């Protein structure tokens, strides 16, 4: 990959040096120093026209090189049910975009080269053509209509946070600069909460008078059972945050003063996701980078970096203050049994309330 980058930079540098030498050469060409000498002449037209042609070729090479060199950057297959649909729509849109990009850039730069000015060349007085205008209005209309329709159907499905399929209801609570997760317990109903109830260990402001909240429990990381729909309810204690879970293709802002929501079904356990071929390769690569960096760190008398093991994560994606860059929590997707077992070890609000009284 690095080789690609180096070749790419070298190519670009070569192009720029080539252009500069040409331009300097031009500066020396016997150009009569008339008042028109800072207006492009035929030589300028030709050189810059050729420059356009070379540029567009280099540009295509760069685009292709980016797609090859950075293919690992694309997120792996989604770990959620709707994610596959999302990825298909993204792929289709991406293909449409790249086709248009390749065609229009080719035309633009080719014309710039082909019709570069020459003395005596006559431009064609061609002011309009209704048929052409119609074509390039209609084609985008049709293509976009297709994309819009697909997008809107997916959007409606995605945002329809209904309770028909008995989703697990979970609250994700954001604050400067971390996340807490509240589980709704056996009744699958979250107790009322408000910042005005925040006191002592009741950091999420659960209403102590609401019976629904008694079996709620609060955790530092998100555990989710695989293949069960999860309805996330988001609440913020201070400023705007955004709950971004890229591997599930899920994101929702967290807004103080209101409850926002997002529903999805995780389909791959953390274990399985970690062991996909893509993730293995990616983590190996990352650990290699970390080993190299650790060597430098140790040489400087610093602590080495820990090796990395993949876990799903949630991160904050809306500027929220100085430590915005490190507001994260782990997400663990596991089997139903593992999840239930873990949940049973969590302290309920009722118990922690009782403890606080003692």
């Amino acid at each position, binding site marked *: 990959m690095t080789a690609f980058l180096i070749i790419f930079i070298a190519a670009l540098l070569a192009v720029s040096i080539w252009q500069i030498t040409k331009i300097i050469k031009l500066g020396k060409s016997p150009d009569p120093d008339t008042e028109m000498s800072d207006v492009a002449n035929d030589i300028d037209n030709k050189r810059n026209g050729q420059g356009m042609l070379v540029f567009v070729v280099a540009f295509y090479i760069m685009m292709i090189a980016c797609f090859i060199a950075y293919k690992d950057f694309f997120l792996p297959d989604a770990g959620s049910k709707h994610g596959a649909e999302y990825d298909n729509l993204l792929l289709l849109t991406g293909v449409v975009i790249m086709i248009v990009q390749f065609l229009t850039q080719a035309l633009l730069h080719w014309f710039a080269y082909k019709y570069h000015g020459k003395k005596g060349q006559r431009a064609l007085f061609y002011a309009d053509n209704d048929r052409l205008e119609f074509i390039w209005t209609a084609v985008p209309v049709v293509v976009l209509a297709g994309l819009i329709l697909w997008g809107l159907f997916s959007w409606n499905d995605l945002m329809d946070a209904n309770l028909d399929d008995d989703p697990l209801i979970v609250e994700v609570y954001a604050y400067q600069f971390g996340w807490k997760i509240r589980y709704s317990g056996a009744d699958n109903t979250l107790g009322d909460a408000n910042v005005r109830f925040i006191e002592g260990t009741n950091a999420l402001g659960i209403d102590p008078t609401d019976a629904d909240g008694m079996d709620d429990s609060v955790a530092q990381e998100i555990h989710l059972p695989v293949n069960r729909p999860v309805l996330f309810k988001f609440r913020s204690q201070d400023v705007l945050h955004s709950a971004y879970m890229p591997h599930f293709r899920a994101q929702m*802002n967290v807004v103080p003063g209101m409850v926002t929501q997002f529903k999805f079904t995780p389909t791959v356990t953390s274990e399985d996701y970690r062991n996909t071929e893509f993730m293995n390769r990616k983590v190996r690569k990352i650990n290699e980078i970390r080993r190299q960096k650790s060597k430098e760190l140790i040489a400087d008398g610093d602590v080495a970096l820990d090796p990395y093991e993949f876990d799903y994560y949630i991160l904050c994606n809306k500027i929220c203050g100085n430590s915005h860059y490190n507001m994260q929590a782990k997400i663990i997707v596991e089997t139903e049994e593992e999840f239930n077992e873990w949940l049973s070890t969590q302290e309920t609000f009722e118990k922690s309330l009782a403890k606080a009284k003692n």
Partner: protein
Amino acid sequence: MGQAVAVEHDDHGHDDGHHHHKETFVTKYIFSQDHKMIAKQYLITGLIMGVIGIAMSVLMRMQIANPEQPSVVFEMLLGKWAPDGVMDPGIYLALVTIHGTIMVFFVLTAGLSGTFSNFLIPLQIGARDMASGFLNMVSYWLFFVSAAIMIGSLFVELGPAAAGWTVYPPLSALPEAMSGSGLGMTLWLVSMAIFIASSLLGSLNYVVTVINLRTKGMSMTRLPLTIWAFFVTAIIGIVSFPVLFAAALLLIMDRSFGTSFFLSDIYIKGEVLAHQGGSPVLFEHLFWFLGHPEVYIVILPAMGLVSEILATNSRKPIFGYRAMVASILAIAFLSTIVWGHHMFVSGMNPFLGSVFTFTTLLIAIPSAVKAFNWITTLWKGNLQMNTAMLFSIGFVSTFITGGLTGIILGDSTLDINVHDTYFVIAHFHLVMGISALYGFFAGVYHWFPKMFNRMMDKNLGYVHFWLTLIGAYGVFFPMHFVGMAGLPRRYYTNTNFPYFDDLADTNSLITYFAIFTSVAQLFFAYNFVKSIFYGKKAPLNPWKSNTLEWTTGDKHIHGNWAGAIPHVHRWPYDYSKLNEEDEYVIAGQDYVPQHIPLQPKEEEMNH
């Protein structure tokens, strides 16, 4: 060649009673009411703000490439904000915020539209000045004051505003949430309020001038596309800027007078605040009601300039003049009803998201029409590769590249996973940042001879263009892929997520390109300053253009034309027009300026 260019100064020189009065230094250069001088004031102020804004972006990129590493540059420029030369996370966010604010408002709104609307509207429609020279002067000086306050806010004790250029409350409303939300934020809001006043005075003036002061024969359908763009831009500004003013005012009240427009249920620093019942989403709506039209306020003038320059240098009429005007109008209309696409995941009703997806993707249609028309304008032309022309071609290229990714971002479903990632940064920098800057450069190179009566050095211009073209794509094309990895914007460092470790090389590469591109701008700076004083004397109409500004002669007088204002007899795009005998309409020249009456054997066309 130049036979038909300069309008003869005949004896009804003073028939409109205009007198050229004595000017002092102060009335000529400082409190000038001459639109040409005001345009230059906007240009120079905008350029200085541009230098500051771009320098900030370089500092940010240096931090991202070498996170938390000491740098002499930081130590020198940031002082106490970079203890031991390591940038503080707070100041990183401040740089993000002020870079955005300066580039969007002070460079691309005031610097671009302010410069060229002021300079070109009276000259191209055949007016002696703006409808109100005085208000025009006030507009510039309000802009100057707001710029001075914005720069001044960099030096306050707790630092400048740092809540992002969108200043979403509660972060921007609560000094407890971040130090930049103290006095820095107050100054930001005051500066923006003054900026809005400046912008409104300017816009009202442009609209009134275009409607009322066109010379005889200059019907709306004979206006150059530049004027159409400025005119419509001004209207969008008048419609949307007051809404930002309302948002700023309500935010000031929430901050200082205890109201709760945007605040509710907040617990911060161990205390529950009294605010109850407000909604940050309301602020987002108000902000983006301006914020989205704002990107069109930035890009439409660039589109106008580019249309004009492409036609002139292709020696061809702009293709589809009426379609171009129609698409400007369509873009303007749609731009005011798409703001919600910034808020798909804000928590607003998902049904609204559907509506905004629909309108957003609609706006791609007039944009596509414009792109195709520009490309067709080049087809079978006789392209004169002046620097302005190169930047115009570059504009079309980056506008397409950046615009296409808008189809992903404008789709509410796809936006979910790329929202607020570097993919967005790449998208909007290409489509409105770089493109608008290219439009700006094209405009400066093209109208420099008119502004200063001297030519800019073309070879330096070529070097500037090619280095910028390569550098800008080098910065923003790879950035899409970083965004596809889900890397959030506005992160001080990415090292807390090992998952992003393999992006570090690419981030360094982007930083190198950013530095490279910024350094390349020195070619422009040198060329610009040098040419003002030592450039070659400009011919009266160096690009052989049809529009009226090239008919004034080389004396810069308040009132523009020494003699009578020329009348207009045709549209501005009669390039390479042939008569019935297949000869150029005016023998020996491939253009027919607007003030030339219909020639014998010439067919009149309705465009």
